[in-house]
């Protein structure tokens, strides 16, 4: 690792100020960033830990019924809130392993936007709002492709607001080595329609499978998409699966998620 300074502010304002330094970078749980630093693939001058900011911790319910998750809330805490939002708790409980879930944060995951991460599917699938220190960003506007988001330099994900669907489920097919999603599908049924978000599959990162959404909005059952096939163009092909295989898995997992959510 290249060396860096370390700061652990206790307020968002102090964190924003600390991130104003040249080449400063926010540190959530570090479960992706620290391995990246070990490979010397990044060289921040300063890491600003967000873990000490109490206003960014925890799960609560807003007046409009939305579930609000502080940006520095670890996966284990979300996984433990199944009484609040079972679909999302199930997703969080399947990320990495227990020790990773004890450190990794929702804000870190969404800021990184790994194309095989789970949270982007949950956020996009629910049509969540990503709250930052300076603005609110709709999930549909937030994800801009692999490892790319609408966040500006130094902008912090302080909270994520999830409208709670009537029914939802996340199905993850694990890449056997990393245990990231080879493909993951989040299905959310709202009163006004169904959203289907897919991670792990596309070279463009998380995306909505709009054909499936249309079919499921008309008829929320696995049968409604039994014959629907996703094309393999633009799907990731690697050691663990061809693009055709990934496209196929999207269909299988979507059906399973619908069956589990119905």
């Amino acid at each position, binding site marked *: *690792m290249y*060396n860096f300074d370390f700061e652990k502010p206790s307020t968002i304002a102090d964190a924003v100020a600390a991130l104003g330094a040249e080449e400063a970078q926010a540190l959530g749980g570090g479960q992706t960033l620290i391995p990246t630093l*070990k*490979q*010397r693939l990044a060289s921040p001058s300063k890491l600003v830990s967000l873990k000490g900011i109490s206003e960014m911790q925890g799960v609560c319910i807003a007046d409009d019924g939305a579930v609000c998750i502080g940006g520095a809330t670890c996966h284990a805490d979300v996984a433990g809130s199944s009484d609040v939002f079972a679909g999302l708790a199930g997703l969080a409980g399947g990320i990495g392993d227990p020790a990773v879930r004890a450190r990794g944060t929702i804000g870190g995951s969404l800021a990184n936007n790994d194309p095989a991460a789970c949270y982007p599917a949950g956020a996009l699938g629910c049509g969540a709002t990503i709250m930052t220190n300076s603005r609110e960003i709709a999930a549909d506007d937030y994800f801009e492709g692999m490892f790319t988001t609408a966040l500006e330099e130094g902008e912090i994900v302080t909270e994520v607001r999830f409208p709670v669907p009537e029914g939802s489920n996340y199905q993850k*097919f694990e890449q*056997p*080595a*990393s245990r990231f999603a080879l493909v993951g599908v989040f299905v959310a049924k709202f009163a006004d329609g169904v959203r289907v978000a897919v991670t792990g599959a596309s070279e463009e990162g998380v995306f909505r499978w709009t054909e499936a959404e249309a079919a499921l909005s008309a008829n929320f059952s696995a049968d409604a998409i039994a014959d629907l096939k996703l094309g393999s163009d633009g799907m990731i092909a*690697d*050691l*663990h*699966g*061809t693009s055709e*295989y990934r496209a*196929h*898995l999207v269909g*299988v997992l979507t059906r399973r998620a619908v069956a589990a959510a119905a």
Partner: protein
Amino acid sequence: MPKDHGIGASPKRREDVRFLSGTGNYTDDINVSGQAYVHFLRSDVAHGRITSINTEAAAAMPGVLKIFTGADFEGVGGIPCGWQVTDRHGEPMQEPAHPVLAQGKVRYVGDQIAAVVAETLEQARDAAEAIEVDLEELPAVVDMKAALADGATKVHDDLTSNLCYDWGFVEENKPAVDAAFEAAAHVTTLELRNNRLVANPMEPRVAIGDFNRGTGDSTLYTTSQNPHVIRLLMGAFVLGIPEHKLRVVAPDVGGGFGTKIFHYAEEAFCTFAAKALNRAVKWTSTRSEAFISDAHGRDHVTKIELALDAENNFTAIRTDTHANMGAYLSTFAPSVPTWLHGTLMAGNYKTPLIYVNVKAVFTNTVPVDAYRGAGRPEATYQLERVIDKAARELGVDPIALRRQNFITEFPYATPVAVEYDTGDYHGTMDALEKIADFSGFEARRKESEARGKLRGLGVNCYIEACGIAPSNLVGQLGARAGLYESATVRVNATGGLVVMTGSHSHGQGHETSFPQVIAEMIGIDESMVEIEHGDTDKAPMGMGTYGSRSLAVGGSAMVRATEKIIAKTKKIAAHLLEAAEADIELKDGTFSVAGTDKSVAWGDVTLAAYVPHNYPLEDIEPGLEETAFYDPANFTYPSGAYACEVEVDPETGKVTIEAFSAADDFGNVVNPMIVDGQVHGGIGQGIGQALLENAAYDENGQLLSASYMDYAMPRASDVPFYSVDHSSQTPCTHNPLGVKGCGEAGAIGSPPAVVNAVVDALQSGGHKVDHVDMPVSPSRVWAAMNA
């Protein structure tokens, strides 16, 4: 009732106490006063010519002590190969030079170009980034068959081609084998790949070189399975240090599985640099570095043909294998696809005619050498897959086909040069049928089908040659070392014993099981026996631990040394009891005179040896310490029958292991608990090979699975509880303990059972799939189902 001590008992492991409380002493836990750190600058291209290396700026960076390049190693020896194979035409294999640091060319991603020694590791890494290397990239040779094509780029310019050797075995049998295929009633052919693996002991390799200018002594602390072998290879062939000026210590070692047998450049570098700098130099591999610097395993591509007569008797086997050597010859690499593979092609069957052809090939990849089983898993996989395929083609029960062809009379001389001393293949298959509940399989299959899953049952047998190895025989086969083992048994005055063994324990539990043998022989408590290993200054010259040899060879040496001790103590006891030596009996730690009530305790006799006031000094020396070297008369031949049940999800292709059963014949068993554990671990690795693990290169020679992010290690959730049984015991006839070895069986026996089960499951679902290459990943299974 199970025994509570001695041979056949399962005492708790004494080494566990330190491992469970965090007080083990692994190599990276050792820090030598004033040590510096080395970071290796490794090639990130598979093949290239180094046109220049400029270290000037890097050398001036903070903390840098010295930057070494190939030029610093001119006149220093290269890393030696320990086995010379002779090809079909009587010519020796092609053997390239293997420098400690690259000389003019890099030949794989990971090849070490330069080494930076600095005060801290981060300073060494910083400086390595500042080294300017001008490299002319050359085409990479990755695919073995392409490597042998006319005009292929050569990995080594000074060799005639990329062919290391073209080995035929048994060459004289070839015409008869070909004739048998002409006459066959049925021929089954299968082409398959034995996937390249990375051994991945959980402890990465570490080396610390140290030098004492005052005495001129060098010390190497290293993560090795065989410190004496490293001392000999590095001292004699690389650095020119005589054994008496070089100490090699392999303390607690966190797993080996073969990959810590070999002598590596990093060991030689640290020892060399410590002397050059007069400072200890430490290297700790990261896991990512391990993927591109630890020798890999397997990587065979084979076409196997099985000939049968009209009654389904096996009449001949013919194989054609390409075996990857990687870019250089690692220590035992040439022996793996030849003498550890071709000699096992008879398996458990009385096939009269066998011909094995192996072409060993240089490629721009990490060197390939022994990994748990080494050659024997490759043989077993081919044979047991082709037999399964033959049974399906012939419409016969695969177990019945195997039973029909079992060898039943021993000793049995195979057509591939080995002689099995004992075995009972029907016995292990009978034991398997009991523990695997074959009769309930159809009901379990129906239950799986009701849940939309396909269920398959796969069975296979295996035999291995281990207890490596008779020195005179392996010498004829090209080994450049003997393969005996040693033990010194030191009895202290108050009766306790210390055994210094040339074997090395890196998980096998020798500190617990070896005392069980001595306790049984003398009739004393196991707590009176301590095992020392892993330090060339303590133990006599030994060859270390691999090839399931520790108890069969190392244990036998310990038995021989203990027999010498017992003979001497009987002489002393006879003197003390004023009786004839022939009348002295040793039982339960007491010497008595047959037919009398006269006796003397073990401790009184050992005390007399060191306080020889009343002692036959005219006949024997005082003291009680004996050494024995044991060279085995033959290999040992453990065997067994394994069964795997899988479920396949037809929608995703995902395979889950529902049950795994293993019935082994290891001969006599000293510690059943440890033996079971060895089998469990082997099965875990075999399932890993069959379902998950794959060291894959792209066409440019980049390793695609170069960390745990892409190399899938088996986790707890990937495997079930295993059913294991070793009740079928035909003791080895030629070692004093009647033991055969159990370390590799699980890894050898399990992959074909898994793949046989997957094929069975797919066929039960109506899919015309007769083979899926390992690892049988969901993607591959799905593709096979939808081909």
